[in-house]
């Protein structure tokens, strides 16, 4: 079984976000595999171990994103492909899906996995967009996956209930928390990852036109949410409290 995993390198979820000159600063920041993509990597390795075949991890990003691929390979993925994003200007989900589709067009695959969203931009678009471009079905936010022959059965959370869906390979699925417990890269895995093949591509290698890849959206402004201020506890008679609350909502919070 040929298994592809699309992943993104993101800030460690414990990092603090700081903005410098209107942009998010990545100075001294620790990077990790986007946690939802990590579920996808784990699931891919389990599928491979059960059905045989190969796991290829793919990312679009700067040089440092290679480290995310190495981590995935240390967990057990067999090879990696990184597409340099240096030529991509104003890239958004549209552009990334296009690039991934171009990479994947040249590959054989039975199933494609990814996280349902990246914890940085949080758009949850790249998976579905990619499936559309490849003209294959997709199921998002899965919590269980079973593959039997070309039959695929998944479970996903729906408003507190579980929905079971059947489909067929080839398919793209995106992972939700609960799908599995990702393994740690073991030390032997880490040492082996060094020697696994990692292909570096740029936009030219994919016969893509830079203009075609320009994003459909533009970031106008980046700012931090306002700092949370101390709460207020109203005191006194109930009636006075209500009056004060209404006054505050009207004059201070200006929501009514």
């Amino acid at each position, binding site marked *: 079984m040929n298994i592809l995993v699309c992943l993104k390198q993101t800030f460690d979820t414990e990092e*603090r976000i700081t903005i410098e000159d209107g942009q998010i600063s990545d100075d*001294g920041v620790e990077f990790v595999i986007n946690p939802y993509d990590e579920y996808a990597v784990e699931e891919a390795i389990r599928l491979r171990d059960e059905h045989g075949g190969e796991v290829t991890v793919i990312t679009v990003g700067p040089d440092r994103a290679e*480290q995310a691929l*190495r*981590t995935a390979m*240390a967990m057990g993925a067999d090879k990696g492909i990184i597409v340099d994003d240096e030529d991509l200007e104003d890239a958004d989900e549209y552009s990334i899906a296009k690039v991934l589709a171009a990479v994947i067009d040249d590959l054989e695959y039975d199933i494609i996995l990814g996280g349902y969203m990246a914890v940085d931009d949080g758009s949850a678009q790249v998976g579905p967009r990619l499936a559309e471009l490849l003209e294959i079905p997709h199921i998002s936010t899965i919590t269980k996956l079973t593959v039997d022959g070309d039959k695929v059965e998944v479970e996903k959370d729906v408003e507190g209930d579980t929905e079971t869906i059947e489909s067929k390979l080839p398919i793209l699925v995106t992972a939700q928390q609960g799908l599995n417990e990702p393994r*740690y*890269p*073991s*030390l*032997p*895995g*880490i*040492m082996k*990852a*060094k020697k696994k093949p990692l292909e570096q591509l740029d936009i030219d290698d994919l016969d893509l036109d830079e203009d075609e890849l320009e994003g459909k959206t533009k970031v106008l402004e980046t700012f931090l949410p306002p700092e949370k201020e101390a709460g207020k506890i109203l005191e006194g008679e109930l009636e006075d409290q209500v009056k004060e609350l209404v006054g505050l909502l009207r004059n201070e919070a200006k929501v009514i």
Partner: protein
Amino acid sequence: MAENTITKGGSYLLEEHSLEDVFTPEDFTEEHKMIGKTTEDFAFDQVQPVLEEIENHNFDHTVKLLKQAGELGLLGADVPEAYGGLGLDKISSTLITEKIAVARSFALSHGAHVGIGSLPIVFFGNKEQKEKYLPGLASGEKLAAYALTEPGSGSDALGAKTVAKLSDDGKYYLLSGEKQWITNSAFADVFVVYAKVDGEKFTAFIVEKDFPGVSTGPEEKKMGIKGSSTRTLILDEAKVPVENVLGEVGKGHKIAFNILNIGRYKLGVGCVGSSKRAIEISAKYANERNQFKTPIAKFPLIQEKLATMAAKTYALESAIYRTGGFFEKGLSHLDDAEGAEAANAIAEYALECSITKVFGSEVLSHVVDEGVQIHGGYGFMQEYEIENMYRDARINRIFEGTNEINRLLIPATLMRKTMKGELPFMEKASGLQEELLMMMPTLSDEEPAPLEKEAELIDHAKKIFLMTAGLAVEKYQMELEKQQEILRDLADIAIEIFAMESAYLRTKKAMEKDGQEKAQAKIDLTTAYVYEAFPRIEKAAKHTLSSMEEGDTLRTQLSILKKLTRFDPINEVSLKRAIAKRVLEAERFVV
């Protein structure tokens, strides 16, 4: 690796080490970082949740977690690949030790297994012994312990009373005696035990727990590290096959002392991990805790504490990885070395091992003490991690050779190396007096370049050491070993020099690589440490000089000391506030 690139142990006192010869955390490879992360994730996600049960002596968790650690490769770093391990470099195994430290008691079980438990076989076992024991030890299928201490012999390890007697058929040694405070004893399968053959020849044995005559006593009740198993190992005519003699009969001290050396280094490594953790939880607490409607992190006295904790930790971390680099160069080519060769390679850095042990344990003592203080009353409550860390830290100044013993060892090792002609201590020391008398203080109105002044202070500190040690040797000669106060002072100076210089060289290396601006945090930490440590050097030198000489001679020497210790104070207040700001923003130790 070419022989000439190997740095001589103790040589830092007599010469300048070049930046290329100094390993720093900034030299970690991607693999090193990944190994560190796997270890850290394992400690936080798998060990911490059950730590409380482990502290209540539920050792099933410990055994299970050690097996899990084995599957991840966390037990096999120092075991050669040929024997089921990973044969990783010494920096990797150092990182594992550092990162697992946050698992507290469990870290001790892990350390006793991979360190003093397994390493005697790694370095001193013969082929059959390695084949028989190492694969199981690397996988965690078998767990190891180290049995040296006895009720009557702690620091005086060679005073052991346990005896070994060859059986009449010549096939077994019968071991009798009691080994005390044996870490991992509740569940260890293999013990490295020291006993005297015929009551004389100090010898190491590999003893399996199932050998007839082997048993353990009840669990000890301890002040800290309550979750590590500590029992007595009772040997009652324990039947140990002759092929289980480790190394040679009568040469056990070579194994014991060198394993102690490594153990001391690893203890210092663990102190790096624990110190960083204490800074992290204290910084978080300071940001969260409000008094007078203000987070206590805003108070300069809290900031000053965090800054000092960070500066000490920086010096320690630098000293540790510098030593790790020495070991990597000295030991990496000895993958399947003969015991004697390994012993020599380890012994080369005995002085640095003692330094990292003493310095590490005392930095950690300071850091957890201030950590408790930052936590205020909550720091005294058991449900707070810092309370545990405070109790756990105390043993570090005691085991693996008390800090007093290790202090005595530092000048003693230097003298031994000098006698053997390995270090030119005497040449350097003689003639120095004259040079110092002629020395004129360098005074300049120009603003010094970053770390220029610190480099000068370190150079002066080395001169102070040479002068003081030289005078002490001259005066007491072979009787010097009885002057413990002087030896202690000399050790303190030697330790501070190693700490200051390691921080300095690391920062210098980072500045050359990334430029001054990016290295600012490191420059600040180095400056803070050097200006704190230097007066301690002056004090120790004064103390020793005043005990050795009097009258005019003393006055002359003190005037030389004064020349060497003249420096303008810096604004430590603003410096420490800047350091604390970074720590509080990141809520962890950052460089």
